[in-house]
């Protein structure tokens, strides 16, 4: 399969993703899946500025992503999908059960969230959602950069 990384990271396209993961996986296509950014031209333009020339960037709503997963899976282009919130991730995996593996990269602090790892803050609801995903047999692993050790989600406090 060539949907090489499905990543939860609320900074979306940033250095760890482009320099770290993009180069480790030799990805050439990055999908930002976010319903609001999909609607906003000026935000898309800013996100595009962060992309290196050898990677292309596309924007998708969750619905569009679900529909496109079969196409990404059989395309020859190495693809990396980013989303910034747990809800979108869960909706994607529910809609496209072919996704068997997700990477939890980083969510930052918000008032209802508790710190779990140095780069991971989750509310109880979000932790529960990810736990259920893992129980359904999806491999949920937590890892910020490719050189770090992946931690299975069930080991997260």
């Amino acid at each position, binding site marked *: 399969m060539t949907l090489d990384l499905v990543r939860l990271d609320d*900074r979306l396209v*940033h250095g*760890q993703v482009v*320099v770290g993961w993009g180069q480790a996986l*030799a990805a050439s296509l990055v999908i930002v899946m976010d319903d609001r950014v999909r609607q906003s031209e000026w935000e898309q333009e800013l996100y595009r500025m962060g992309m290196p020339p050898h990677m292309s960037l596309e924007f998708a709503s969750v619905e569009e992503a679900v529909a496109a997963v079969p196409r990404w899976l059989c395309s020859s282009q190495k693809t990396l999908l980013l989303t910034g919130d747990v809800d979108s991730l869960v909706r994607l995996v529910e809609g496209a059960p072919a996704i068997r593996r997700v990477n939890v990269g980083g969510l930052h602090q918000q008032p209802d969230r508790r710190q779990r790892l*140095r780069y991971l803050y989750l509310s109880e609801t979000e932790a529960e959602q990810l736990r259920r995903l893992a129980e359904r047999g999806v491999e949920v692993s937590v890892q*910020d950069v490719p050189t770090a050790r992946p931690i299975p989600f069930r080991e997260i406090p």
Partner: protein
Amino acid sequence: MTGFEVAALLAWGTVVGLDLVSVPQAMISRPLVAATVAGLLLGDPVSGVTVGMMLELFALEVLPVGAARYPDYGPASVASAVVAAGGDPLRAIGLAAAIGLVVAYVGEFTILEVRRRNSRAVARYREGLASGDPVTIRAFHRAGLMRDAARALLLTAAGLALAALPRAWPPLTPRIATLLDAVVIGAGLSAAISGTLRGTGTMVGLRWFAIGLAAGIAVVVLR
């Protein structure tokens, strides 16, 4: 070392320790600069720059991307320069660099500790921050700077203590010393190459790296 030299090295170590993350990030903390200046303070800049080159190879591996963790080579360079100074710059460079590596490695954890303390401090300042009080913002920010300054000073002091050890111990036999030189140089070269290739994108980077390498070998052969 004289008292003045110790004080100057502590001050320089603190400055370069601060430079890495806090202020001014002018990369005077890179071993190539930090170790050379430390050597200069001890009257032996050639030993300083030589051990600085050695550590710079290791520092080329570091990609200080966002929240990633990275070693602190500034105070480490000061410790290495102390070990190297006064001797033949190309002898026992392995020992000097190895001591720097230990300090850099410890430094990585001191940075994490400062960041953890900064994170805990957020709770204490939470209300003032939320209300947009400039005095709270300044106080929080200065406290962070002070923590990093204390960290850099302590790390430099620990490094200087570590650097004094080889003088207290019986000297390495020439065979051990040169073996140590060889393995540390080898490890440094692999760190520099892998770090550069990882940072610049494997395929494109590889091509340009190969061109540079060929040019470098040509210079070595023709000189």
